[in-house]
């Protein structure tokens, strides 16, 4: 039987919503991560290297996601 009340959400909207949810998760995770390294790390060099590696990998991926969800 055909569903007369089927809701169709465009792909673009789904992608945008997913992007904002993931962005929120990323922001919360990053704050927790930075808090731990700032408060509990015993090596300044290791802390800096961890920050550099984390942001070097995650920010381009986030940019790519933003591009795919919002611009393309």
């Amino acid at each position, binding site marked *: 039987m055909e569903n007369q009340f089927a809701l169709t959400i465009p792909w673009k909207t789904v992608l945008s919503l*997913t992007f904002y949810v993931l962005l929120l998760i990323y922001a919360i995770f990053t704050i927790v991560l930075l808090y731990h390294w700032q408060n509990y790390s015993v090596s300044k060099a290791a802390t800096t290297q961890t920050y550099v590696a984390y942001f070097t990998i995650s920010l381009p991926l986030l940019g790519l996601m933003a591009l795919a969800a919002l611009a393309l």
Partner: protein
Amino acid sequence: MNNNRLYEKIELEPDERVITTVRKHWFLITLELLTIVLFGLAPVFAFMIVLALPPQEIIMTFFETQTPALIFGIAAWMLLSTMAAAASWTSYYLDLWIITDRRIIVVDQINFFNRKVSHFRLERLQDIKVTVKGLIPTLLNYGTIRAQTASAAESNFTSPGLPDPRGLQALIQNAMDARLTSIGPVSSAID
């Protein structure tokens, strides 16, 4: 290891000297990170397999029409993998044993919201057991250290995956002997 930084984070007693700091064996974190990286790259491998197969119209049409969704999906998967790797690395790096000339400080960073810092005085240590079990731990020389103390509140502690456990056992034993000698047999018996 920058000890000044260490002293800021963990309060040492006056004239207390750090003998060594120990983290879990490098093989454990390497294995964990490698697994996460392989999981992170799984969509890329899947994409390459699909491209290597004879082209099918339905797949090609999907690729052409849903390119942004595909890019988004792969990037999101890799971002989540990066976060998992960061969490693993944080747990590994912040998990620490500090052996001083007076006590053992065990920092147990189980996950982000589960952190335990315990202090065990060397003069209260009664027994230290080392277990190296399995082929890889034997070859790479890592294992579990179990120590028992005289105090009821901190009766024993266990830490798996420590590098060179026998060397560590000897180091703790020597530090313990030196501590008992420095405080004298009468005071150690009272403690």
